[in-house]
């Protein structure tokens, strides 16, 4: 098995660049009235010892992307998703420490496919709040532009100029505001003691200087308002949600007693629909464990409905308008 360093080196130097004509065309593929969300599962993703099978992760990713784009060949599928010749940011989530962070294997799988679709290694920037969060994902900091870059906002810094939308008065990470033409969110599915569930939209708390300012009221309307900041609304266009491992109670602190293995990736563009789907998954798991729903526990993720309302218009939380593909 390759070491992480070997893998990064191979990924950085062994890319097959396949062209420059890729474009974002997801909306062309979608039913005009529905948001597509793909939940791809592999029950054998973890072995009996709870070890993740890296090879199966990239296979699962390929299945999820193929289902989403309607293209069987991963390279063709990825060309539909990412622009070539631009910097693509992968916003991981390591805030809860190494016990429940975006999996390294998923990050590497996405990097491999991006490069095969024509994105140069140096045009991929894996980022989060800081070095500690990135290291929690098993990543090693690297600012060398000839390879896949990995660093946080602690290195890039934040904009001096604050931006505001509703209650969100924030300073954006320069990684988001200046470096990335497109951000692919790679959040990890978690319960959250204040806002119920954290996934696609709340992942953007890691893109601002003072996330703690947006926790009031169960992060509502903080999450929705933050995602309306133009740079986030426009750049965070695609999400490959890591639901291979999850926490259904007590998070964001790592509580291994409430760890569970959905063995899934949740993929889509509509972050509201993604969060709605993620919330339903957590509630189903809580029911299986004999626990009250998030609403009964007083932690209904209200920000999801707020994000879908006529003011925010970030997506839909109406299950009738979500085209859910479970594969």
């Amino acid at each position, binding site marked *: 098995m390759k070491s992480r360093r070997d893998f990064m080196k191979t990924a950085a130097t062994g890319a097959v660049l396949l062209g420059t004509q890729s474009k974002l065309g997801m909306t062309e593929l979608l039913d005009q009235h529905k948001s597509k969300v793909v939940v791809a599962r592999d029950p054998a993703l973890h072995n009996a010892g*709870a070890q993740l099978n890296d090879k199966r992760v990239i296979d699962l990713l390929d299945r999820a992307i193929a289902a989403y784009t309607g293209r069987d060949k991963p390279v063709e599928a990825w060309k539909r998703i990412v622009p070539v010749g631009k910097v693509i940011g992968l916003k991981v989530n390591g805030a809860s420490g*190494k016990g429940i962070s975006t999996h390294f294997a998923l990050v590497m799988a996405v990097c491999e496919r991006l490069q095969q679709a024509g994105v140069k290694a140096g045009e991929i920037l894996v980022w989060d709040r800081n070095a500690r969060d990135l290291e929690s994902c098993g990543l090693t900091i690297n600012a060398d532009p000839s390879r896949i870059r990995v660093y946080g906002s602690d290195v890039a810094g934040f904009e001096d100029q604050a931006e505001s939308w509703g209650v969100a008065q924030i300073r954006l990470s320069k990684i988001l505001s200046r470096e990335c033409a497109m951000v692919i969110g790679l959040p990890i599915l978690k319960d959250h003691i*204040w806002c119920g569930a954290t996934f696609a939209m709340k992942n953007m708390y890691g893109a601002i200087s003072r996330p703690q300012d947006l926790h009031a009221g169960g992060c509502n309307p903080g999450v929705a308002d933050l995602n309306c900041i133009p740079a986030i609304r426009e750049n965070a266009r695609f999400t490959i949600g890591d639901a291979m491992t999850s926490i259904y109670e*007590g998070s964001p602190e790592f*509580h291994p*007693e409430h760890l569970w293995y959905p063995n899934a990736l949740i993929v889509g563009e509509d972050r509201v629909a993604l969060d709605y789907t993620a919330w339903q998954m957590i509630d189903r798991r809580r029911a299986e464990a004999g626990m009250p729903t998030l609403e009964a526990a007083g932690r209904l993720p209200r920000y999801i409905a707020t994000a879908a309302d006529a003011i925010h218009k970030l997506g839909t939380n109406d299950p009738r308008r979500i085209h859910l593909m479970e594969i």
Partner: protein
Amino acid sequence: MKFRSNWKWVVAVIVIVAATAGTGCKKKAVDPFPASGAVAGWDKTGDTRVFAAKDLYQYIDGDAEQYIAAGVVTTSTTDYKYKGQLEATVDVHTMSSADGARKVLETGTKDAKPIQLGDAAFAYAQSIIFRKGSSLVRIVAYESTPDTPQALLALARGVEAKL
């Protein structure tokens, strides 16, 4: 002559009492983390990081509020490894009072097993949480092995002895 000798003793006693009282007023900063090898099988593998309450979100964003509400003063954290394999993180939250430590401990331990450690303690298969005075300690392992519960308990005792 006798009078002068007694005065010397009185002065000496006053100096000693004053010095003792002086040090007693200040809470001695303790390093709660056992050194490598101090607890059998455990090596300290990380640096100790200390967060003041106002900076706690940098470490546990989203969870910081519950500790701040309970009066956390500082949080110290470091990593350990057991027999070169099992990784664990130890967090020591120093609260402003024992009540603060009790308040956090009583939250979210409904399905945990009570154990004898410090002033009160609970264990899960991969974690232990206990309080002692104004300190609240949480130890979490990142893997469940047959050795994990006993190894965590030994490390927890090592920390508890240093508080």
